[in-house]
C-alpha cells in the first residue's frame, strides 16, 4: 500500500477502535469507587497468610502461577535475545581498545554508588512481603548497580567482573527455583504453589511464608537475566560492530581498531 492508503486504512480502523474504547470506558465503574470485589477478597486472604504487602500476596501467593509465567517470559526473552544477537557466521568479535576518558567525579560517584545500589537492591528484594518492591524491582536495581561499573570504568572492567556463564546459570537457577517451590507445594500440601512455609509474624521480615522465597528466586533470576540481556546488547554494539568500523573505507587498520579474538567463537 502507498503511505497515504495505509494511513487511511489505519485511521478508519483506529477511529472505530477509539470509539469502542470511549463507549466501554463510560460504562466502567468510576475511578476510586468504594465497591471492589477482588479487593474485598484479596485483603483478608493476604492477612490470613501473614502478608502485609497485599500486592506481593496477590503476585506470589494468590495468583503465583501468573508470576511463574511472567518470569518465564523474561527467561524466554533473554534466551531469545542471546540467540538473535549471537555473532553471525560472517561477523567477527573484536576486543575494543580502552578509549575515551571518564571524569574523575563520575568515577568517584560510580564507585561510591555501586555498593549502595547493590544494598538497596537486596533490601528491595528481601522486603517484598512487607513494603512495595520485591524480586522484579530489586532484581532490576541489582543489575543496574553492576552496570555502574560500565559508567565509571570501561567496558573491559565490566567484562572482567561479570562472568556471563555464571549469570546465565544464576538466571536458570532462579527460574527453576520458582517452579521448584511450586512442585514442593504439591509434595507437601498437595497443591501447586501452595504457601507451605510457616507464616511468621505479620509485618516482620520473617513473614508471608513462601512469598519471600519466591521473591528471592525472582530477584536472582531478574538480576542475572537483565545482566545477561544488557551484556548481549553491549556486546553487539561494542564488540561486533567494531568490525564494521574497521571495514569502512579509509578506516584504520586492524591492530589499531582492536584485537581480533576470533569468529563466532562464543557458545
Amino acid at each position, binding site marked *: 500500500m502507498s503511505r497515504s492508503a495505509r494511513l487511511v486504512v489505519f485511521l478508519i480502523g483506529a477511529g472505530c477502535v477509539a470509539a469502542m474504547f470511549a463507549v466501554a470506558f463510560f460504562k466502567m465503574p468510576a475511578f476510586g469507587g468504594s465497591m471492589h*470485589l477482588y479487593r474485598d477478597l484479596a485483603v483478608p486472604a493476604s492477612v490470613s497468610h501473614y502478608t502485609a504487602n497485599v500486592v506481593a500476596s496477590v503476585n506470589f501467593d494468590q495468583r503465583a502461577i501468573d508470576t511463574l509465567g511472567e518470569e518465564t517470559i523474561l*527467561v524466554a526473552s533473554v534466551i531469545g535475545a542471546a*540467540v538473535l544477537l549471537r555473532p553471525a557466521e560472517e561477523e567477527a568479535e573484536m576486543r575494543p581498545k580502552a578509549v575515551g576518558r571518564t571524569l574523575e567525579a563520575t568515577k568517584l560517584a560510580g564507585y561510591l554508588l555501586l555498593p549502595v545500589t547493590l544494598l538497596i537492591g537486596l533490601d528491595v528484594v528481601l522486603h517484598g512481603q512487607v513494603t512495595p518492591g520485591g524480586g522484579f524491582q530489586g532484581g532490576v536495581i541489582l543489575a543496574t548497580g553492576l552496570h555502574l561499573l560500565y559508567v565509571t570504568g570501561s567496558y573491559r572492567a565490566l567484562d572482567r567482573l561479570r562472568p556471563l556463564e555464571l549469570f546465565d546459570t544464576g538466571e536458570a537457577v532462579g527460574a527453576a527455583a520458582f517452579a521448584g517451590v511450586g512442585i514442593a507445594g504439591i509434595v507437601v500440601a498437595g497443591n501447586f504453589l501452595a504457601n507451605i512455609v510457616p507464616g511468621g509474624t505479620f509485618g516482620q521480615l520473617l513473614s508471608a511464608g513462601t512469598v519471600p522465597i519466591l521473591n528471592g528466586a525472582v530477584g536472582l533470576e531478574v538480576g542475572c537475566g537483565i545482566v545477561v540481556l544488557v551484556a548481549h546488547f553491549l556486546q553487539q554494539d561494542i564488540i561486533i560492530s567494531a568490525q564494521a568500523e574497521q571495514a569502512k573505507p579509509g578506516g584504520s587498520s586492524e591492530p589499531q581498531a582492536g584485537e581480533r579474538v576470533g569468529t563466532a567463537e562464543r557458545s
Partner: protein
Amino acid sequence: MTTGQLMPLMIAIPIVMACLILAAGSYLPRVVTDILATATAAGVAGMAAALLIHSGHSRVVTWLGGWRPARGVSVGIPLVADPLNAGLALLVAGLVSCALLYSWKYMESVSGRFFALMLLFLAGMEGFTLSGDVFDMFVFFELMGAAAYALTGMKIEDKTAVQGGLIFGVVNSLGAYISLFGVGILYSRFGQLGLPQLGAMLRQHRPDALVIVAFVLIITGFLVKAAMVPFHFWLADAHAVAPAPVCVLFSGVMVELGLYGAARVYWVAFGGTIPHADVTRAFIVFGALTAAVGAVMCFLQRHLKRLLAYSTISHVGLFMMGFAVLDDDGTAGAALYVVGHAGVKSALFLLTGILLNRYGNVDEHRLYGRARGDRLTACLYFAAALGLAGLPPFGLALGKSVTEDAVAVAGYGWAPVLFIAVSAVTGGAVLRAGLRVFGGLGPRPALESTAGAGEESTGGEEKPETGGLPRTPVTMLLAIGILLAGSLAAGLLPDAGQAFAHAAQRFTDAAGYISQALSHAGAAPPRPDPAVAWTGEGIGLDFLSVALALGVAFLGLYARRLPAALRRSAAPARPVIAVLRQVHSGHIGDYVAWLFTGIASLTALLGLPLL
C-alpha cells in the same frame, strides 16, 4: 498423586528442564541434551494422556495454591481439563516430541538455547490450554509468543528470518496488548478473572457495550494468533523463515490454540450473554473469508514453506466455521479436523525441511525434478499431500466431512462447496509442488519471478538448517512416520469419532464447566453425544475433493499448454489476484492498519445487531 496435580506439572516440568539445559547445556554432550529435551516432551505427553483418560469421566479441576472459591468467587486461578483441552494438551506435547525428535543433529550453533526455547514454548502452550482464568491465559499467551518470536528468527544469517520474527513479534504483541485491554475492562466491572466466575456473573447480565467491547478486544489477540483474515499477515512471513520443526508447532497447534482460546472464552464466560446467533454469523464470515483468501494465496506460491503456511491459514478458516456453528457436531468435527490436519501438515513441513537440507533451497521451481530418486521421501510427501486434500481414511477427511455437514445443517448450505474447493485448491497446490519436485512433471518452470509488485518470495535463498547431511537421519523419518500414523489413527481407530463427539459435548456444556469448577459438584448427567462417524456421503465428498485436487495440480502443471481461449477465460481473475498479492506486502505498517480494520469489522458484526 491425583490427576489435578498433573496439570501444573505439565507446565512446571518443561520450565525446570529448560532451565537445566540452559544452565548445564555447555557441559552436556549434544546427544544428552537431545534425549533430555525429547524425553521431557514425551513425559508431558504421557501426563496429558493420563489427564485425557481421567477427564473423559469427569472434568478435572484444580485451584492452584489451594485458593478454592467460596460463594462463587475466588482470588485464585483454576486449571480445568475437559476431554477437549486435555486432548489438545496431548496434541501439543506430541507435536513438540516429534519436532524435538526431528531436531536431533539440528541447529548445531545454538543447540542448548534452541532446546530450552522449545521447552518454554511447550510450557506456554500447555499453560494456555489448561488455564481457566482469562488473565492467566494472557500470561501464557505471551510466554508462547516470547519463545516463538525467537524461534522464528533463529537463522540470523538470513536477514528475512530476523524480519519475519520481527513482523511476527510486532503483530502478535499488538494483538496481545489489545487482549489485555479487554481483560482490564472486564475486570473493572466484575472484579474477577476466572472464566467460571465470570461466566456465572455474566449469565445474569445484559450484553451492554462494555461486555461486547471487552469480548471483541479479548478475542482479537487470540484471532491474531489464529491468523484470521485480516489478522493473518504475519503467519506466512513467520512460517517462511522459521526452522521446519518450529513450523510444525506453529501450523500444527499454536495457530489452532488461538481458535481454542476464542471458543473457550466465548463458551464459558460470554456464552450466556452475547447471543449465539450473532457470534455464529460473525465467526462464519471471518472463517469463510479466511478460507478463501488462504486458498488463493496458497496456490500462487512457489516458496514451499509459504505455500504450506497459506494452506494452514485456509484450513484454520474452515476450523473456525466448525466452531462457529456453536453446537456439538460442529465442535467435534472441527476438533477432529484440527488433529487430522496437525498430523499431515506437520509431516509436510518436516519433509520440506528434509528437502532444504538435502538440496539447499525450498523453491518449487528451482527444485524441479531434483528429488526424483528419493523414493521414500516422495512416498511420505504424497501420502501427506493426499491426506491434506482429504483422502480417507486420514483423520482430516473424517473431520472435514463432519464439519462441512454440521455447517450445512446449521443453515449454511453453501459450506460443503467451500470446504471441497479449499481442500482441492490447497491440496492441489501441494500436489503440484510434489509432482514438480519429485516427479519432474510438466514443462520446466521459469526461475525468474513472474509476479508483479507486492509479495513474492521464491525460497531460493533459504539457508539449510543442518550441516550437509549425507542422508536423512532415521530420527527425522521416524518423526514424520509418527505424525502420519497419528493422523491415520484419528480416522481409523473405531472409537475415535465417538471420543471426539464426547469431548465436544463436554466442551459446549458451559453450565457444567462453571458448576464443577466453582463447587466441585459432580458432572451433570451428560446429554447424549452426537454421532461422529464415517458416512457414505462424507466419503464420497472426500474422494471428490481428492479428485479435484489432482485436477488442480495438473492444471497448475500444464496451464501453459491449455488452448488460448480457455486461458483467456481466466483473465477476470487477474486483477483480484494482483490486488491480493499487493495486500500481502510484507510491510508491518500495512499489517497493523489491517489489524485495526479487523477489530472494527468484528465489532460491527457482533455489536450492530444488538443495538
